[in-house]
């Protein structure tokens, strides 16, 4: 075994590219473990876990780069170091825009502001500890902010949102995954038609699904504003949500408004409700997992994303839309179901997106099926060991626990492949339910990566003479850079059922589980 640890002082790189590089190098032959990352507390902890910490790494600062390789022999370690060196030299800062003025390297937001060339949007995905400082600079320089980073304190978030209000600027985030501003995708977003529906959402994948379904129903979007995962908490009080609603309410191009959120704090929900009721435009409210017994006035309440999309498009067009779900085909479903063994009774939902995971759980709960999760709707439903699925299990692989020191599974979906294979092979698994996100921000070939796991699991299941039902919900549109049809075809070719509606996929899974249960009971009955 050969272990090498290096510290490169004052050589900063962004964490996503370093995590990706670590992953790539870890896949090389003879390489046991790799860490390429800035010397943050977390990375030093991970380094200690690898047994690669040194006095030098203990003294390193977050601006110093750590490189650690554990390999079977010296040759493998050298190859790994060389690959890291090559990967590091690839990137070059500067203007990403084609044909723009050459050599200038910008290090700070104020340098860009000083150009006075109308730069009006800061897209921030630096480590959360440093994010507030950068956002403050952007807001003070008159820029709107899309803040992808999480790990920003409540106090910092409040300060930023107060500053944004004072400056009349939009502060999207922290923990904001998705926005479409003037049709431009910020973060993780799909390419959808322009139209007259404006959205304010405290949910990333939820917003993606909503815009995609509106698109599939023939509607279009003016603005889709992400407010950040914590905006509707009691502490933040929905500050960005309220600012976004005010702006959408004043926007002439927006004729219908949708408010989307994971369960908000009750007092914030009622504030948002009151404000929404006062808007002189039709408003659709979709608060996943929250029952409202308040007076809704003229507001429309939607129980899931598909209902929300349908209501918005109906209010926009004046007629009830139908969902075009081009690859949805149940024809093989009954036969697959019939081939399940009596032991196969449960669903295993392995998700990249938190909100679509939530929505699937709400669906199961509504039909009375018990569920467990690492992001439970209620504490009683918490999974004891997040690595071990029990009964109907829904795992959000994008949860902090799984993304410590690793990229989000939407960026690198291979991170959930091992779990998918393991869960598919469990003797009590009847249905595998997964999501696939296309669009800007996501992996260039998420279906291709997923299918690797599906094929491997299917081959091993075939060896045991059995099968499972594979269901995929695909969030994607014709305009997405990955190519919608080729991606769906990869899933179909692997034998998966494909829907562009997450709730439809979840309902199908619930039907499968119910049917599998009934089949098993019938079989038991025969035995007795």
């Amino acid at each position, binding site marked *: 075994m050969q272990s090498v640890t290096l510290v490169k002082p*004052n050589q900063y790189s962004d964490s996503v*590219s370093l995590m990706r590089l670590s992953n790539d190098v870890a896949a090389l032959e003879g390489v046991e473990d790799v860490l390429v990352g800035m010397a943050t507390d977390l990375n030093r902890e991970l380094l200690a876990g690898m047994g690669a910490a040194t006095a030098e790494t203990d003294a390193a600062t977050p601006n110093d780069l750590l490189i650690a390789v554990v390999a079977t022999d010296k040759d493998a370690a050298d190859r790994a170091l060389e690959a890291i060196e090559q990967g590091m030299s690839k990137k070059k*800062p500067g203007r*990403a*825009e084609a044909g723009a003025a050459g050599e200038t390297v910008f*290090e700070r937001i104020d340098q860009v502001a000083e150009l006075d060339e109308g730069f009006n949007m800061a897209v921030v995905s630096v480590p959360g500890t440093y994010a507030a400082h*950068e956002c403050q600079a952007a807001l003070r320089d008159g820029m709107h902010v899309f803040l992808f980073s999480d790990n920003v304190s409540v106090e910092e978030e409040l*300060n930023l949102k107060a500053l944004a209000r004072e400056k009349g*600027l939009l502060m999207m985030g922290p923990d904001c995954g998705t926005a479409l501003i003037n049709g431009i995708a910020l973060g993780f977003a799909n390419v959808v038609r322009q139209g007259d529906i404006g959205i304010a959402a405290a949910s990333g994948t939820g917003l993606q699904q909503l815009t995609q379904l509106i698109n599939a129903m023939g509607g279009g979007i003016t*603005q889709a504003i992400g407010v950040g995962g914590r905006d509707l908490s009691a502490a933040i009080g929905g500050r960005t949500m309220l600012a976004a609603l005010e702006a959408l309410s004043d926007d002439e191009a927006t004729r219908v408004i949708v408010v989307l959120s994971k369960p908000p704090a009750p007092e914030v929900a009622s504030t948002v409700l009151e404000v929404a009721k006062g808007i002189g435009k039709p408003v659709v409210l979709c608060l996943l997992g929250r029952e409202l017994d308040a007076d809704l006035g003229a507001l429309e309440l939607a129980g899931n994303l598909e209902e929300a999309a349908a209501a918005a498009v109906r209010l926009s067009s004046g007629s009830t839309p139908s969902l075009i779900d081009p690859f949805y085909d149940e024809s093989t479903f009954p036969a697959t179901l019939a081939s399940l063994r009596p032991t196969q009774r449960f669903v295993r939902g392995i998700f990249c997106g938190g909100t679509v995971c939530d929505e699937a759980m709400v669906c199961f709960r509504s039909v009375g099926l018990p569920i467990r999760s690492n992001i439970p709707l209620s504490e009683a439903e918490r999974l004891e060991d997040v690595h071990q699925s029990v009964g109907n299990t829904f795992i959000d692989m994008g949860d902090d626990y799984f993304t410590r020191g690793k990229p989000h599974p939407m960026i690198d979906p291979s991170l959930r492949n091992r779990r998918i294979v393991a869960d598919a092979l469990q003797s009590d698994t009847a249905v595998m339910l997964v999501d696939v996100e296309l669009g800007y921000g996501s992996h260039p070939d998420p279906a291709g990566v997923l299918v690797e796991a599906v094929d491997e699991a299917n081959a091993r299941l075939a060896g045991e003479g059995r099968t499972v039902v594979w269901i995929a919900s695909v969030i994607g549109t014709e305009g997405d850079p990955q190519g919608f049809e080729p991606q769906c075809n990869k899933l179909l070719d692997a034998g998966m059922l494909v829907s562009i509606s997450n709730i439809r996929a979840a309902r199908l899974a619930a039907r499968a589980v119910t049917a599998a249960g009934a089949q098993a009971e019938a079989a038991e009955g025969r035995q007795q």
Partner: protein
Amino acid sequence: MIRELFGAEIKAVNLGSKDFADDLALQGVATINLSWKPAARGDKQLLEAVDALTRDDVDAANQEALRRINAAQPYLIGVGRALDTLPGMSQDTILHAGPPITWERMCGPLRGAIIGGLLFEGRTHTAEEAETLAASGTIEFSPCHEHDAVGPMAGVITPSMPVFILENRNGGNRSYATMNEGLGKVLRFGAYGEEVLERLRWMRDVLAPAVSKALALSDGIDLKALIAQALHMGDEVHNRNRAATSLFIREILPYLLQADIPDAERIAVVEFINSNDHFFLNLSMPCSKAMLDVAGGIEKSTVVTCMCRNGTDFGIRVAGLGNRWFTGPAEEVKGLLFPGFTDADKNPDMGDSSITETAGLGGFAMAASIAIVQFVGGTPADAIRYSEKMYTITTGESQSFSIPVLGFRGNPTGIDVRKVVAQDTLPQINTGIASREAGVGQVGAGLVNPPWECFHDAMLALADVYGNAQGR
């Protein structure tokens, strides 16, 4: 208004994951991807301090500091005896460069200069006796800066030394400095031999009265105007004072000729000034001091009012924190050594002369003094780069001094502690290097920065005092 964003062209600056920038560019959005690294060296506490003071009222306080610095009009108005002239001076006081320091912690050249000072004052007859006296506690050591004065290198001022008197005619404050002895074996590098003492006596008995008489005939000499010209003649008035010294001679000579001075002395005085390219350093320093002192005490201001070193510690003061010192270890100067010397001969950074940088001169004005790079090392491009970088840590620009090669842009002025720590860009100082042996003299010249600690500690103290103030 947020609504104004709707329909406007989006132009983005991206920091963090480059993927987001690539995706924006793919959508045809004009995007600048920053070459980003954590601000304030990734020190969260420091970053929070910076953020707490990133406010309009602090900006306004700094603008007031800049306004006062720009409005100052220091004139050389006379020469006096330290004991009679400097505030807080006593027969037992010896002033030194840099922040406060005890005899025990003083470096070799500073000790040498104090020995020389005690011999010059006639307090003892031998160096050994002087050391004993210095260590006895009888002598009060105090920073020049705490007596409105500055001194190059060791910066030693004893009670009977003559000092230049400067007055800010737009504010009334005064500043003081000794007269420059020239190069070689001199007190400021810690030499205390008979030739050094002899020169000091001549300066006290001949040079000072002559200059004093000449100045008495003048209406004072406008030092800011003189420095402005010198900057356009290739000086940065810290390590290069050749033009400024020449200009000073032009100013003072008519009065020296008119004054009632014996001819032999007049000739000796003119030869002495004319033979010392650095004569003006002891005027550019108090001029800087007089300009900056008017910013001292402005509430909430994060502008640095002095940077100085005593050969052991580096110290700074900040406008909003009055007379508090923030210190760290004086660093090694990197540069060119005179033939025959090695790195082992170098004393750590020393002297009050970095007051010039604090005022936007010296290292901040290197682009005005391209020739200086032959002395301190580097290339002409470096000189321009150093000056350009200093604009990123300063509050604004000088209205009096300008740099021709930068399009006559005003010198970078008013070092902002917030910017220094947030950007991790330390002020650039160019300076002489003293031998660590007392009395050897200058062994080279080069470039140095203040230690990070000074600015780190000052930033935290500023946030401690002003961090909870109301209003952004």
